[in-house]
């Protein structure tokens, strides 16, 4: 046998593979789509700038210096953008803790607090301190804001040049790193993938092997079958979450600032929704293989849309809109609000309502579609 014939043989094999692939449309779409999606979304997400970020200026000072600073902040437009970076709300006489609570609630991305004697002190050549609060659970936005304010203080000649003004940036959530930001998102993502894939695949497999029919011809109701699988899934996913949290703790000292119970509540609701999606997909899929493809199609976009790897605030507006349609977004938001910001039930009430709806809708539909029929 010569190299030539071997080559021809291998080409024939390759051709056959392509032929088969071209007939499996379900595989081609994700195959082509995912690298593209990844490139686009990571590209935009990581390199994004801040637009129209809600920003609070608390100013109790009526002097010249503060008003020129306020003007600079309000009209600041980043180099490559046509939109101002901040959408400013002005306030007088608000305490730092009040401003902090607004940031906690997600109303503002940051707040600049100007002391009442700011202009006076500058006029008298005395030193004074500005306080800048940022939502440091949103790392990109936070860094962006800090850098911009520093830059503006420099250009208005207030920082360094006079040597009188210093900027105090308290870290309201402690020292945060990318991993603090990433961990809650990764947990939510893992739970979503896990619950959709494992439940769905298990049902699809039992359907294919016939064990599902065998189970369903006994007096057991289909609800019990589903419930049994759900319990199993809940335990599995919660255990996974605990392991992930522990790993993050031992590796980088990741801590949950809020309540473990709330974390569990979010995860339980979200797992239920995921299980529902898994059941729906397995009911629609004829075989194991077609289930895998369907599941990919449903889970993958969530991963790139929802700001697991980068803050949504730095993503383009169209992407933020899409993200609002994906339940994972709300799970991630709730997880970050509890785990990083250490907030209570109130701060995640919207997220919880949406996640509850998600669970109810998918679960009801799943039970409805799940057939006893062989």
């Amino acid at each position: 046998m010569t190299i030539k014939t071997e080559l021809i043989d291998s080409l024939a094999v390759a051709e056959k593979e392509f032929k088969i692939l071209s007939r499996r449309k379900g595989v081609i779409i994700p195959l082509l789509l995912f690298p593209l999606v990844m490139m686009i979304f990571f590209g935009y997400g990581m390199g994004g700038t801040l637009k129209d970020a809600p920003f609070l200026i608390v100013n109790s000072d009526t002097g010249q210096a503060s008003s020129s600073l306020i003007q600079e902040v309000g009209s600041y437009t980043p180099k490559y953008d046509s939109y101002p970076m901040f959408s400013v709300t002005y306030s007088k006489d608000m305490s730092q803790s009040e401003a902090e609570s607004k940031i906690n609630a997600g109303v503002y991305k940051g707040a600049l607090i100007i002391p009442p004697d700011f202009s006076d002190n500058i006029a008298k050549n005395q030193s004074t301190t500005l306080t800048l609060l940022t939502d440091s659970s949103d790392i990109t936005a936070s860094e962006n804001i800090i850098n911009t304010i520093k830059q503006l203080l420099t250009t208005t000649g207030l920082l360094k040049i006079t040597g009188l003004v210093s900027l105090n940036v308290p870290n309201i959530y402690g020292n945060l790193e990318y991993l603090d930001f990433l961990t809650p998102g990764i947990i939510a993502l893992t739970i979503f993938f896990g619950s959709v894939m494992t439940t769905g695949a298990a049902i699809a497999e039992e359907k294919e092997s016939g064990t599902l029919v065998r189970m369903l011809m006994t007096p057991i109701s289909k609800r019990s079958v589903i419930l049994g699988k759900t319990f199993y899934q809940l335990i599995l996913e919660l255990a996974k979450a605990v392991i992930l949290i522990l790993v993050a703790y031992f590796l980088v000292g990741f801590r949950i600032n809020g309540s473990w119970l709330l974390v569990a509540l979010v995860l339980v609701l979200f797992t239920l929704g995921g299980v529902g999606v898994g059941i729906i997909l397995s009911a629609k899929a004829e075989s194991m293989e077609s289930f895998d493809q369907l599941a990919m199609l449903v889970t993958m976009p969530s991963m790139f849309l929802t700001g697991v790897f980068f803050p949504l605030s730095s993503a383009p507006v169209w992407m933020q809109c899409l993200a609002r349609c994906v339940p994972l977004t709300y799970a991630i938001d709730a997880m970050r609000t509890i785990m990083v910001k250490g907030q209570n039930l109130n701060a995640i009430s919207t997220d919880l309502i949406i996640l509850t709806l998600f669970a109810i809708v998918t679960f009801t539909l799943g039970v409805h579609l799940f057939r006893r029929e062989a």
Partner: protein
Amino acid sequence: MEPIIEVKNLVKTFDSRGKKITAVNDVSFTVFKGEIFGMIGPNGAGKSTTFSMLTTLTKPTSGNIKVSGLDVGKQDDRIRPIIGIVPQKLSLYPLLTARENLKFMGKLYNIPKKVMEERIDYYLRLVGLEDSADRFTEGFSGGMKQRLSVICAVMHDPQILFWDEPSTGLDPQTRQAIWKLARKFNEDGKTLIFTTHYMEEAENICDRVAVMNLGKMVALDNPEVLKETSGSLNLEQVFMHFTGEGVCN
């Protein structure tokens, strides 16, 4: 004779990629309590589909079925506990042992633990699987799977046993063992309904035989009578007599 299954004008059509398939076409028959009832017919004749409907698994397109006086479709919850089904596809969990598979079935039927354990031991011995009780079924031969599959179906001591193709793909010795088992269940008082495409088996074991072809039940009677009416020497010829035309077309 007391009827235990009554089927009237049973029809099942499937929609397969826009094409309508009539799997079961206006079938009516009665099975009597305590008999061994065989359904023979080529692949695709509609035997398994009929079974699915009789056992509450598939909704008929039209027609009526009564099992032990209960309406299929309306009283499924009461029917399921009194029937046992051995599906054509030997669906066992490959990564459970034989005993675990049986236990799982027993639990679904809510059999008390003690009774269940006694039955498991009894049945495993009856079918000669006691030495493989704690092996994963993944490595079982076809005959072993068939034997385990049938005792999975009788764990709850059903009145009626549906057995879809008990002997397909098995060697003659194993087939002998399977039929012996079938007779044993019948002697224990169970009504037995099975399908096959081996005529001589139907002839040897059945009280009555129904011949199915292309969704229709083309004949139903005692094997002896069937041979007489078609003027044939054995069921093989009876079968050809009743289905020959259909197969040729």
